[in-house]
């Protein structure tokens, strides 16, 4: 597992998609700081600014993350390097786990850098309003939603493995999941009992629910089920796949 992960890191160093995804995501807080400094005539509120960053990051990061894992898997099939990997030999289950691990590694790095830049930006723009509890809340919210989003999107790797060299079906699935994730913030109270069971809707819902809500547990359970199912399906698909 260690060797497989290390080789994924080696590949990551020259992976353009990883770099582009990283730059696109971390640009969001930077651009919003520049916008607030140079373009906004009316001074905006701290919470409003944070919400805008949060909304955009939650839109862009999953898309970039989807691009990253789709391209990572599709390249292995397209360039047929998967044959060299399996004959090295690398256990098929280990290969899937190494992909998931490096995807998580990339995701966490991008998330942390984005969080840091967001906090830095908020300190530049709203120095007097930003308290330590506000910073903690921002970190907590970003991290919680970021991690839940990553887990809910794990079935993407199964689709990527199933589609082999095809890029579009996986990307369309990613966009559909992102759409659902965004729609999650618009779910009405009446639809809440049903929406909680949809993992991608549940990501945003979980951010709005109080800690003691029973729906929060349903949301988290559905997201974890999605992640678990994604991993199991990916391993099963890859283990039975003829290369």
């Amino acid at each position, binding site marked *: 597992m260690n*060797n*497989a992960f*290390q*080789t994924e890191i*080696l*590949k990551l160093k*020259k*992976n*353009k998609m990883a770099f582009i995804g990283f730059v696109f995501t971390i640009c969001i807080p930077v651009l919003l700081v520049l916008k607030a400094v140079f373009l906004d005539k009316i001074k905006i509120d701290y919470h409003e600014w944070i919400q805008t960053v949060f909304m955009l990051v939650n839109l862009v990061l999953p898309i970039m993350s989807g691009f990253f894992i789709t391209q990572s898997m599709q*390249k292995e099939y397209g*360039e*047929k*390097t*998967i*044959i*060299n*990997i*399996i*004959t*090295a*030999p*690398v*256990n*098929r289950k280990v290969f899937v786990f190494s992909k998931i691990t490096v995807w998580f590694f990339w995701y966490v790095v991008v998330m942390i850098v984005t969080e840091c830049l967001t906090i830095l930006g908020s300190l530049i723009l709203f120095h007097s309003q930003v308290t330590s509890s506000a910073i903690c809340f921002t970190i907590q919210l970003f991290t919680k939603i970021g991690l839940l989003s990553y887990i809910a999107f794990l079935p993407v790797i199964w689709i990527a493995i199933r589609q082999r060299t095809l890029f579009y079906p996986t990307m369309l699935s990613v966009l559909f999941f992102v759409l659902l994730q965004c729609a999650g913030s618009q779910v009405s109270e009446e639809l809440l009992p049903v929406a909680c069971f949809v993992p991608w809707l549940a990501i945003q819902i979980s951010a709005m629910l109080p800690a003691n809500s029973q729906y929060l547990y349903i949301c988290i359970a559905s997201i974890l089920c999605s992640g678990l199912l994604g991993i199991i399906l990916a391993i099963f698909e890859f283990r*039975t796949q*003829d*290369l």
Partner: protein
Amino acid sequence: MENQIILATKQLTKKYGDVRAVEQINLNVKKGRIYGLLGRNGAGKTTIMKMVLGLISISEGEIEIFGERLKGNEKSIYTRIGSIIETPSFYSYLTGTENLEIFSRLRGTIKKNAVKSALEVVGLPYKDKKPFVSYSLGMKQRLGIANAIMNDPEILILDEPTNGLDPVGIVEIRRFLQTLCHEQGKTIIISSHILSEIALLADDIGIIHDGHLLKEFSMNELEEKNKRFIEIKVNSVTKATQLLENMMKCKNYTVTDKNCIEIYDENLNTEEIADCLVSHGIGLSSLVFKHETLEDYFTSLTGGAKFE
């Protein structure tokens, strides 16, 4: 050592739905020899190699390597095998050295200078800046071979390794494989669409046709049993055959074309035949001593399916 079977398949079958891509293949690869898999495109050569390497599942039958029955992705077995399947496959944006470093790390158990020495063996530069995508087809093949030999394997499985190489490159690879086999005792299983290449390289041959193993033989056996004959081209086959039968008492011949006869009678010599035909006014345009080649044997076995 020569008769020790290092890789054997028993009733090996691969089915895709109702289609049988490979059916009941019984290969026997001897240790320290070069085994050539011959067959037309789509005959099932790559499918067999992929099953041996665990890239595709086995529908029926079994594979034994190093005396052990293959059950799955056994690391202990596959680390002793080097391979190239279809085309050499590497990361296009990485250099040759970087690519080999990745695969050497995946293997985990190779020597310190393995990447450098493997590249030296195939004549590729170490630590160059050229990405794989800019490599010529020949360089790609060489890198594929470097990757296959990097962990000093006991068995090399090479699917069309000379594809895209220029004539000099083909000769170099052939010599290199012969050295690996005959001096270092490696066992090599090779498939190629260049039949003459296999004839020059292989010690043993398996002929695959439509997913079936038609024949397995050694090149020595083939040479021993190859028919030797005299081929004559005349202006009148009818008159020539009458002369052969009446004057020279030869019955062992075949008319292969409207003006071509193959004479298998070993007691006759070329001068005798030429004198007889010319003295009886038959125009003789060609008279050559021939023997059946691997291509002829392949054609006869596959029922006239010409090799591509």
